[in-house]
């Protein structure tokens, strides 16, 4: 049985932990708000770009472009987006597990491009070929980070160093739901024909479809990577907020339990003392 002093010490430390988790929860909530705003702000651009791609492909056969070049996949690269820090619930574990499964299932030699320390530490320690690790500022990824990653994988693909590029990230649905996923980004596959050819417009192209496509595809690639980074940031903060909320609640419960125990212990020691006094008095009488 723990002594009263020990229990009180445990209450104190539980309170300290609760204070920390509460602070982390508030910080994560504020960052989550910012991150979801950024996801929403970035959405119009990617939607419109996607629409433009569709109207281009409806306008006729898409001309060949190096970024769309399909070839047998012998070597591939995975861009793994994780957080720099832990204490975000199962966020990092989930995405790392998903990426690990993908690496095991996919044949061919793999290289990894990591964004965020957690993923690069995990896979570098296990002997995977991490060709580049990028770290993003804690305030969240900037567009420049996405540009750097995009240029890197584009060069790898165009030079033939890899035959396909995938992005592993956590898609953000809400603060309590994020789904890790792996999507293929290179070679770029044109948007599927949705069968609504009726409303397709005859566009005039200035200068011509080939050059427009040439300018469009790199930006399309960038947008996918950028969107993935933003979603990952939002997921990270969402996951951390949820984890820290339950940690704070758990600490509260623990404090309550320990307080009860401490009170009981205090009561027991008082009772014991009284019994001793009474017992002593009885003994003197006798």
């Amino acid at each position: 049985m723990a002594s009263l002093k020990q229990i009180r010490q445990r209450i104190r430390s539980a309170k300290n932990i609760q204070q920390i988790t509460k602070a982390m929860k508030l910080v994560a909530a504020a960052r989550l708000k910012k991150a979801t705003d950024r996801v929403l702000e970035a959405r119009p651009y990617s939607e419109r770009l996607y629409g433009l791609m569709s109207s281009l492909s409806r306008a006729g056969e898409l001309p060949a472009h190096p970024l769309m070049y399909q070839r047998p996949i012998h070597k591939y690269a995975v861009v793994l987006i994780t957080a720099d820090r832990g204490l975000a619930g199962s966020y990092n574990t989930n995405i790392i597990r998903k990426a690990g499964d993908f690496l095991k299932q996919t044949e061919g030699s793999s290289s990894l491009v990591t964004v965020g320390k957690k993923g690069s530490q995990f896979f570098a320690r296990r002997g995977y070929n991490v060709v580049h690790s990028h770290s993003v500022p804690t305030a969240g990824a900037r567009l420049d980070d996405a540009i750097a990653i995009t240029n890197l994988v584009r060069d790898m693909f165009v030079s033939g160093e890899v035959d396909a590029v995938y992005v592993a990230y956590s898609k953000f649905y809400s603060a309590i739901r994020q789904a890790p996923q792996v999507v293929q980004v290179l070679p770029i596959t044109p948007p599927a024909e949705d069968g609504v050819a009726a409303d397709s417009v005859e566009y005039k192209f200035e200068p011509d479809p080939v050059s427009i496509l040439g300018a469009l595809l790199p930006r399309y690639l960038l947008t996918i990577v950028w969107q993935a980074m933003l979603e990952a940031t939002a997921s990270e903060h969402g996951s951390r907020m949820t984890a820290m909320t339950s940690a704070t609640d758990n600490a509260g419960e623990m404090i309550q339990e320990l307080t009860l125990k401490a009170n009981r212990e205090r009561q027991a020691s008082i009772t014991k003392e009284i019994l001793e006094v009474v017992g002593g008095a009885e003994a003197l009488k006798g």
Partner: protein
Amino acid sequence: MATFRLSVVAPDQSVVDEEVRSIVAPGDSGYFGIWANHIPIVATLRAGLLEYEDLDRQRNYVALGGGFLEFSNNKTTILADSAAHARDVDVEKERVALEQARAALRGESSSMTSAEAQQELERAMFRIKAAQANGRQ
């Protein structure tokens, strides 16, 4: 008079979304104008100044860092690599950026590659131009 919708979106934000009377955009082979009921067009844009006339006949300027323009059904979408509305430009900040880019181009500073510096120079220049064009009214 017929008007049409203009939206200018950059990867990280939406800059303009309003009804306009006409626009002048920096096309790859020179500036071109678009009025309502133009035929559907897709065009690539250079870095430059986008000018549009709003419903109050005010001329507005947006500094664009290249991109695309799509026009159909009286809706224009400009997908810009970067975009800044003239009223949001901080001229002092851009002048500093301009000077830094110039210094980098002269080889006095190695903080950026010459391609980056060139890009930065253009960006800052058009932002300042946009702000000045806005101030002239």
